[in-house]
């Protein structure tokens, strides 16, 4: 696993022993940050580019779902996972409908499956970031096209004048089309399951 990129993951639980246990489980695979409260988690999110945040649901001052509401607003790109040891159906429904959770995980989890879920979540983060980058590039390309068209309207090229860099522009367009074709499906932010 050493050649794999270590994605930064934030673990939130008010029980330090659970965090300790998770660190033992995940430290070889991920760059880990831990917080014992939702407030501390939000501070860490301000300071570090977290790709995945995984929080316990049952915490004294801010529940996992309440935390994820705030994360969704302030850091929408972070992939959100809540875990719980008991069936609070209202929280599950709220999480799925309003917080855009990637997963709702139940304790105890299978450690191998948890590691796999976290890798999938990190991959989802990469997909979302790549998708946003692609959208930004397309927007920029369209702007360039509009400027180019405007320029041609204002000053049509005459014979013998310097040719516009249409070749490069066309090449950029082809590359963007390729990337668009590769992005076969837009990323979704809501997926629930154990």
């Amino acid at each position, binding site marked *: 696993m050493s050649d794999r990129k270590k994605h930064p993951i934030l673990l939130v639980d*008010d*029980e*330090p022993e659970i965090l300790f*246990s998770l660190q033992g489980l995940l430290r070889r695979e991920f760059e880990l940050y831990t917080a014992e409260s939702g407030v501390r988690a939000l501070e860490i999110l301000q300071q570090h580019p977290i790709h995945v945040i995984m929080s316990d649901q049952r915490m004294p001052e801010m529940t996992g779902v309440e935390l994820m509401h705030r994360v969704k607003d302030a850091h929408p790109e972070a992939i959100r996972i809540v875990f719980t*040891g008991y069936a609070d159906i209202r929280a599950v429904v709220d999480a799925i409908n309003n917080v855009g959770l990637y997963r709702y995980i139940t*304790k105890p989890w299978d*450690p191998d499956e948890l590691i796999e879920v976290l890798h999938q979540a990190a991959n989802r983060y990469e997909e979302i970031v790549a998708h946003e980058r692609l959208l930004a590039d397309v927007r920029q390309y369209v702007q360039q096209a509009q400027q180019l068209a405007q320029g041609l309207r204002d000053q049509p090229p005459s014979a013998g004048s310097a040719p516009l860099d249409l070749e490069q522009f066309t090449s950029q367009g082809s590359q963007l089309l390729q990337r668009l074709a590769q992005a076969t499906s837009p990323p979704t932010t809501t997926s629930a399951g154990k």
Partner: protein
Amino acid sequence: MTDKQPVLLTVLIETSHLRWYVAGIDLRGEALPLLRSDAGNLSPYVGVPFDDQVSFLRHRLSGVLQRGCDRLWGRQMKPCQIVFVADGPFVQADAELTPRVAEHFVEWMTRPPVVYLTAADGFATPNPPVLNQVAGELDVDLRRALETGLPLLGAMLNQPDAWERVPTKNAT
């Protein structure tokens, strides 16, 4: 598919001391002590409304299972069955509390399955323990392994150093 050794993830609940132990028992009945709480770790359920008692015990005991799973994973082991064994019903509580908590785990968790038992004579008996089923079911072979391993674990309860201590933090 897994190449990890299957074990019974076994939680012992000492109701009078309001504490728990978690261990592995392999299919031959060999016992591996893992973690233990301080006395009083389960005390936050005492004196609160029934639903809060159930909620607390679900949460606390699922955390116990989680840590047990994690410790087993580090030893290349994996639970094939979760077993709760209490030395009696939860004290200072309605008689319904124990079956309610037991049924919750049996219904909530199916992989691996859960069984909740009580050992009326406690854990440290030299003879095969008398186990009463509160909720869930246990395969005959797994029951045999449990009956072999349980007295071994019982004998280790008075060896605190055999277990990794989990300090109690708060009452959430």
